[in-house]
């Protein structure tokens, strides 16, 4: 049903209004415009992740959309909170409840965090622009929302989007007198923008690399270069960066990787990676006959978008829930995985669940190939998935309405059956009451780390390398320049 999508699309600007009383109408207009630009930009950026394409976009927003609707309603049911108008909120505002909740739950908060990961519960994700400093550029503001709501998702997509947003903000920037652009821009202008983005959702490895690159580029700008010229130079550089490091790279990778897909292959992939998608489509375009098996998992169901786009392309697709891994690997002949980041010890950081797939494949002696642009390579190393990770709002794990409803009424029946001698005051509760249940924690991790020994090959724009030579590529690509 396309309704929700369209709904959310239209709803955006209006819904934005109540949220930001501080903004003057003028700013509002600017913001809305910026927003649109940001989006269009990303769309235009074809090599950018297709999930920002209208179609992908739709597919994407559906799932969360439903979720947030009933969630909003439910929340308003359970703890009535002023913004129960959230019902109508567009997708990107969704998690605002969650952090509203967090505020409400201040006392219990500690108990709701899994100690193991307490280092990851940084400040709650920002979903409003309340208190965002004035000089945050609207484009960046917009981007922030899109990221926090997975509207823009996927490491490289976010990276691209960010750079484009920076382009705009740089253009909008004027060096104050008696400042050199190279001095001021970074520390006083760019940094707040970046911090803002971080507050919306922790930045990805690629973004980090890009930022580092940008900063030191700016730093190098000749102080007595006229401002406009400097800005144009920077923008030009950014475009080049995006083009070289991502657009072209993706092409290169897709070509190399698609060569790995042989006739009659059964390709197994997990979730959705833009490069993997490109690779598959490429291979299909090359006229190779093969089958794709997609394993997917809650709560994001990214694999479903992939499946949809592949099936539309006419590829034979099989779709399994995460529990079907064993079934999947039994038939698979090749595993293709995308990456969030490649760590210097050859380990792969990617969407949570990837490691399980790799392990299963490894056990079955099926080659595991990771597709990853060098911009996602990192000098960091980690052994487990706990130190470096990201914790998403637990609310995302709530079940869609109908199931919930179903559960509810079965619960109520249980009530009848048991005459309300329940430990906690009778009422049969659903997961949504988790905040009120002491000792219950819901953990919604974003990534996990796949041991290097499960990975046979990493394909980046420099060609195919064993995981062991990730650091080499990293130096070459991200520090060499």
């Amino acid at each position, binding site marked *: *049903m*396309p309704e929700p999508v369209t709904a959310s699309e239209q709803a955006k600007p209006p819904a934005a209004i109540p949220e930001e009383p501080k903004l003057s109408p003028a700013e509002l207009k600017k913001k809305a415009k910026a927003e649109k630009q940001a989006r269009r930009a990303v769309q235009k950026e074809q090599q950018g992740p297709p999930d920002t394409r209208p179609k992908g976009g739709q597919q994407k927003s559906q799932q969360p959309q439903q979720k947030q609707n009933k969630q909003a309603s439910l929340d308003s049911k359970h703890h009535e909170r002023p913004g129960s108008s959230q019902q109508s909120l567009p997708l990107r505002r969704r998690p605002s409840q969650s952090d509203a909740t967090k505020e409400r739950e201040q006392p219990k908060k500690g108990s709701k965090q899994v100690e193991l990961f307490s280092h990851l519960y940084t400040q709650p994700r920002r979903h409003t622009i309340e208190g965002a400093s004035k000089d945050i550029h609207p484009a960046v503001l917009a981007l922030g929302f899109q990221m926090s709501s997975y509207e823009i998702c996927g490491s490289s997509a976010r990276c691209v989007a960010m750079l484009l947003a920076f382009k705009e903000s740089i253009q909008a920037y004027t060096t104050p007198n008696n400042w050199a652009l190279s001095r001021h821009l970074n520390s006083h202008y760019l940094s707040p923008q970046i911090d803002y983005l971080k507050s919306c959702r922790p930045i990805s490895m690629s973004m980090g690399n890009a930022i580092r690159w940008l900063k030191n580029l700016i730093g190098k700008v000749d102080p007595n270069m006229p401002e406009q010229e400097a800005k144009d130079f920077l923008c030009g550089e950014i475009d080049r960066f995006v083009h070289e490091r991502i657009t072209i790279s993706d092409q290169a990778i897709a070509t190399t990787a698609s060569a790995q897909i042989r006739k009659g292959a059964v390709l197994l992939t997990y979730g959705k990676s833009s490069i993997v998608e490109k690779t598959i489509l490429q291979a299909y375009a090359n006229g190779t006959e093969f089958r794709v098996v997609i394993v997917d998992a809650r709560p994001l169901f990214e694999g479903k978008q992939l499946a949809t786009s592949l099936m539309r392309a006419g590829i034979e697709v099989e779709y399994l829930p995460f529990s079907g891994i064993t079934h999947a690997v039994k038939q698979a002949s090749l595993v293709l995985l995308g990456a969030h980041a490649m760590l210097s010890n050859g380990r792969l950081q990617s969407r949570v669940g990837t490691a399980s797939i790799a392990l299963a494949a490894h056990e079955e002696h099926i080659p595991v190939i990771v597709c990853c642009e060098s911009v996602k390579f990192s000098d960091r190393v980690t052994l487990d998935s706990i130190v470096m990770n990201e914790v998403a709002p637990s609310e995302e794990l709530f079940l869609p309405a*109908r199931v919930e409803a*179903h559960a509810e*009424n*079965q619960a109520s*029946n*249980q009530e*009848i*059956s048991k005459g309300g001698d329940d430990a906690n005051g009778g009422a049969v509760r659903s997961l949504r009451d988790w905040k009120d249940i002491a000792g219950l924690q819901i953990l919604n991790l974003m990534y996990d780390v796949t041991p290097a020994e499960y990975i046979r090959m990493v394909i980046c724009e420099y060609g195919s390398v064993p995981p062991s030579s990730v650091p080499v590529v990293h130096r070459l690509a991200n520090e060499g320049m």
Partner: protein
Amino acid sequence: MAPKGKKGATKSNKAEEEHDEPLQAVVLADSFEQRFEPFTIEKPRCLLTLANTPLIEYTLEFLAGSGVEEVYLYSSNHTDQVEDYLNHSRWTQETSPFSLEIIRSTSTSIGDCMRDLDQKQLIKGDFICVYGDVVANISLEGALAMHKARREKNKNAIMTMVLREAGDYHRTKSQHMRRCFVIDAETQRCVHYEQVRPRDSPRLNIPEEVLKDHVEIDVREDLIDCGIDICTPDVLAQWSDSFDWKMPRRDFLHGVLQDYETFQRTIHAHVVSEGYAARVNNLRAYDAVSRDAVSRWTYPLVPDCNLLSDQTYHMSKGVVYKEESVMLARSSLVGKKTVLGKATSLGEGTVVNNSIIGRRCVIGKRVQMDGAYVWDDARIGDDSVINGAIIADGVSVGKKCHVKRGALLSYGVSVADGTTISENTRVTRRKRKRGYDSDDVVHGVTDPKVVGKGGEGFELELDMEEEDVLEALMAGIQHTDLTEDGDYSDFQYEDEEDMAQEHAHDMTSRSGSFGSVGSEESGETRRNAADFHHEASNSIFDSLQKGHDPDNIQLELKALRMSSNAGDSQVRRAVAVAFSKRIANLVEAGKSPKDAVAEAISPNQRLVRACVKAVEEQAEFMLFLQTDLVHRPQGSKTLLFASNTLATQDLVEAEGFEQWWEDERSSASEDLRAVRAETKQLVDVLVGDDDEEDEDDDDDED
């Protein structure tokens, strides 16, 4: 299903106090139409096998699964077969979960069944009403509960329709005609119902009072309506009250909604979002549901749950269901989503994909099968290719044959070696002789052009709507959405969804085409018209055949007309159609048009005279006659002789003819003109030559 146990436990305690009444269900085993021709010529639809299990099994299983205790099964054609089957099935053993009673009826529509049921006084409490071709695993628990709850509040909540949510496009949902339910969001009451054609401007004419007194209404067009209704006895009463109702939706639902103001009776909708529910009511659905079953959407009603006690299906890799003692040659290849029945054998080098093959079939060497449905005991010769066709029991296809998409080979047909059965041809050995209302099935003449030398069977000529169905079947098989098929006949066709009587069906398309002629009628009245038309024309036709006394026919006609306050022109149309049909019928029987006309009309002049008095009436009558004859064998001849007789009997005067002739509608289309061509001289003679008129005609002719 887990919660049920507990629910069951709790609720039943509660239930014990209240006196126990068995849950009853009515199964309408008949589809009063023939979209499954030629198969339905020899077998009732509910016994056709889907994934190698007769449809009725699914339905009964569904009822058993929802805890039904008494089932009444209505059957009016091939009843013996139905009875025979059921009497040997587990449903009639004393171990059966419910008592099953088969009711023979002569009814020609759902309405009749309902009325009959009402008279029989079998129904004590609320009951579930389903068709004999429903495949479903949804739980009625919720629906029943809510229905009950409503009843307690308000006795007027007489019915709950169980509808399955399905997306915008869905293979198991009818693509021809979207049923559109307007539902009050909080009471779940269905406040308006319409059938919309896809690709039409989606205009609903919702009565404004509806909009007025309902705060929030959902307009749902994304629902699969598989005719599962939870009814109260009042429903039956309703049916009886208005004896011209035929279809549960178009008539009943609509009717009840109509006089809501007066009777305050409400019908509710229960939208299910879990489980499976579908009706196998046309070939497209057959294809879709089969595939659903094989890919387990109907779980647990999947092949390997072996509904029938003698089945031994077992699922193996790649969604292949095999029964024991299936013989596969070493080099044969069984692709995914395939079902193979007991003792079926595949020859060397044969490749089968997405196909369902029944028992004891012999598939030769190097045969290619994709999306084929083969029932029991068929034999396919070496090197044949079969795509998306249905091959019935005992068919034998020779070597090197090619059966193309949408082809249907009915029982016992045999195709000679090297023959190609082109797309959408329906080959059969028997055809239904449109005799007296009990249709007798006769062997047809083999047509070598179709089945090749030494083959057996001929092509069953198709009416428009059936072609649609075939397209549909193909569409289904090709996994494409149904593409443009914008002839108005499919409006009628889907409109008849639930009914389209055995005999009436060929007329419905006419009335459709006619509908376009008399296009000033609003959709609403047109519907009634269509109704009245079928009823009337049928009854007249039958009595004509039986040679009833014209006066009685006249009376009947009156009664009918009163009941569904139909206009004169409708009556005229009915009469005209009836006559033309009768004549055609005689002609088919081998009479010459002349005698046919004589035999049909002469004795019944009064009938005609009664309805054509004024000149324009006569003209209209002629027009009706002409329009209908367009589709009849030897239409033009018939028209000639008919006009002649009418003239000589002066039932129609010269002016009548003249007006008719001048009426542009009579020369609206090519074939209309063709039909009346022969009558020209006659008319000229009658009207007396009038030059410019000739020219007109000439113009028309070109």
